[in-house]
């Protein structure tokens, strides 16, 4: 297996969808609950997550062990990123960075 293949293999976030990645990015600076996540992601990426999409992504990330639900405050469950979640996010962002750099280089070479 080449180094590239190994890195792609480790990038578990490749198949979880944009919403999950945005949630992990939002949780990277501290725990948040649903409403705070929606607001933060809107501000951060200009993406308005629907509440149904949000809970689906939160459940999936929790099943994968990438986030943890903290004890409920009132009726709200705050979530926090776990150590494997942070590692997975780092790998995914590195991969995106490489793809982004390659894209910019090709645009430059193409003179577009």
């Amino acid at each position, binding site marked *: 297996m080449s180094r590239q293949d190994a890195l792609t293999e480790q990038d578990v976030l490749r198949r979880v969808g944009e919403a999950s990645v945005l949630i992990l990015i939002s949780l990277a600076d501290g725990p948040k609950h649903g*409403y705070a996540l929606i607001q933060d992601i809107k501000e951060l990426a200009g993406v308005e997550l*629907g509440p*149904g999409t949000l809970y689906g992504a939160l459940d999936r990330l929790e099943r994968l062990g990438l986030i943890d639900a903290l004890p*409920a405050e009132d009726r709200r469950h705050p979530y926090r990123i776990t150590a494997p979640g942070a590692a997975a996010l780092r790998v995914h962002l590195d991969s995106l960075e490489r793809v982004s750099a390659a894209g910019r280089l090709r645009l430059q070479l193409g003179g577009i």
Partner: protein
Amino acid sequence: MPEAGPETGPETGPETGPETGTASGVARLVEIALRCYPARWRRRHGAEAAELAALLIRDGTPAGSIAWSYLAGAAREWLTPHPARRLRTVACALLVAACSLGVSAGLLASAAPARAASPSPPPGPAQCRSGPAAPVPGVIPALGRPQVIIREAGHDRSC
């Protein structure tokens, strides 16, 4: 941790003023959408999801889009295979298989004595023959019913 969101006065909320009917309709729409989720999901997220919907509506998000998002989420939730649900399916399949085996075994067991008592000629002197009974003095034959006469050691007996 960030706060829940902007606190708006009662005059800006959708629950007040002449639109109360619409607001309650909107709330009902979201409530119906939330009821579409599996019970397990509702126990975990139900209250929080209803509160989140109320906050988003207060922020100006159209209630229809919130309800639609929850409906789509509910569909995804039902279609996503969960380990617990898979386990239940396997347990049900095993139960059905066990029941079928039990029924089959029961049928076989009940068929065995019947086969043992199947009409093979008895070794003894008793003989059966079907057909109309020969008039026997002192015996009134059953009306319209074929009779079997057992001739046993010289004595006739209908059965």
